[in-house]
């Protein structure tokens, strides 16, 4: 029964990993931008949520109402002001610039919040659990986190494949030059993609901040989890990203069950196995 419990917990945490990955997958899919600062942006939104929830005395989830618009606007401005200028045939400039951004965010957070780990308090929901037959129990918080993650990925999927904005994203991703001939401003489209990515990042950041402690240097490991989930699931496939996150979460929990020191290692091994046998990920990009 312990093994089943580990797998269930792995599935639930996989939803959070999928959220880490969804924003990354979205901006890579639309503009071929690999955002090295993605993990740091997750941590930045967690700190922002912490500051707003403590200073305004708000529940962390209510703080999302304030943090989401701030991060979305920040993402749009960041994209239009800096990142758009780095995009082109050479993939190196965006890598270098987002790497620089990662360092700036980490050091700024260190300066403001110190290196002490922080955590947001969401109250009883954090410890409440649901008892299942067979002595299994599922925490309400991980369950809610998972359901919301699935919902968000469903919404992203809907935006991408059923709305005019999604069409514009896919057209710009296919051929930027021709998309411009259709009256689409690629700078604006990329800005919107980054803003949506930041919305997902913010939700992931707040979930993370309630679930576990975080500090200014926690971003890169979240970036790696995000990368692994995206690549396991297949680039450009949002449901694949969810499956990738779940595989990563389950692998980590099984690893931890075997030996607590193997938790992270087991996730990396699962990633390498998928990469070895399915270099393009488990699922193909969904087109049309």
């Amino acid at each position, binding site marked *: 029964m312990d093994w089943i419990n580990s797998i269930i917990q792995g599935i639930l945490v996989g939803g959070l990993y999928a959220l880490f990955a969804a924003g990354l997958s979205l901006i890579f899919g639309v503009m071929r931008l690999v955002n090295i600062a993605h993990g740091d942006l997750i941590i930045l939104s967690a700190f922002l949520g912490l500051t707003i929830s403590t200073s305004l005395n708000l529940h962390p989830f209510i703080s999302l109402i304030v943090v989401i618009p701030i991060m979305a606007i920040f993402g749009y401005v960041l994209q239009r002001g800096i990142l758009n200028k780095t995009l082109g045939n050479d993939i190196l400039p965006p890598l270098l610039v987002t790497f620089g951004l990662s360092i700036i965010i980490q050091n700024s957070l260190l300066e403001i919040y110190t290196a002490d780990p922080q955590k947001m308090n969401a109250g009883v929901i954090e410890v409440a659990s649901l008892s299942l037959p067979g002595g299994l129990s599922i925490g309400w918080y991980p369950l809610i986190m998972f359901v919301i993650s699935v919902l968000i990925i469903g919404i992203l999927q809907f935006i991408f494949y059923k709305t005019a904005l999604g069409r514009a994203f896919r*057209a710009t991703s296919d051929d930027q030059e021709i*998309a*411009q*001939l*259709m*009256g689409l401003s690629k700078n604006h489209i990329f800005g919107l993609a980054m803003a949506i990515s930041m919305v997902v990042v913010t939700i992931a950041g707040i979930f993370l901040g309630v679930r576990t402690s975080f500090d200014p240097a926690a971003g890169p490991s979240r970036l790696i989890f995000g990368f692994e989930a995206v690549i396991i699931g297949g680039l450009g496939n949002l449901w694949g990203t969810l499956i990738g996150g779940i595989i990563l979460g389950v692998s980590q929990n099984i690893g931890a069950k075997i030996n607590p020191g193997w938790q992270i290692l087991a996730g990396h091994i699962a990633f390498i196995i998928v990469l070895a046998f399915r270099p393009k990920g488990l699922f193909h990009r969904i*087109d*049309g």
Partner: protein
Amino acid sequence: MPNKVLETKNLNAYYGDFQALFEVSIDLFEGEIIAIIGANGAGKSTFMRSVTGLIDRIDNEINYKGLSIKGLRADEIAKKGLAMVPEGRKLFPSLSVEENLLIGGQIKRLGPWKLNTVYELFPDLYDKRNIPSNLLSGGQQQMAAIGRALMSNPDVILFDEISLGLAPIIIKSIYQNLPKVIQKGMSAIIVEQDISKALEISDRVYCLQEGRIALFGESKQLTRQEISKAYFGI
């Protein structure tokens, strides 16, 4: 006399340090169809790309309805009513046929072209509207590319290498449909390597040679000999 909708004045265009167009002056009047002909590398597509804002480095003026559009981005020019059917069709492969048409229509200019009018013009597209655009035949892709440009209800439509790579029967069908496409008031520039087709469909012809205008005049008045000389430079 009809109004001038598009004019280039001594247009020079560059790819980096390489100059591809040399003082090209072309006028297009309301309701007129002009053809641009020339051998490979003559600068026909460069001209089209310059007019639609796809080339960064150009000298001198491009005026659209009396206002300069030099320096505007391609999306800004498209919103003013200038649409292009690009060489090689260039449909968006991850979009279905209908989504490709809808992308053309997202500019939301008023006019006769909507999904149903495009489907009336090209009934084949209606049957294939939900399939990925890259599964269409070459001719159907050209129809979809024309439909996509029409969906923006442009005042000027540019066709770059309209018949390139298509079977003769498809070319014939597309040329038969062109008069319906280019409705009263709409103006068009057609880049075409098939001289006969270009002369047949157009009011005036410009022949480019190595980035310069080698010949221009009314399509019905130019002789084969004049065109061959300008086209091949011999």
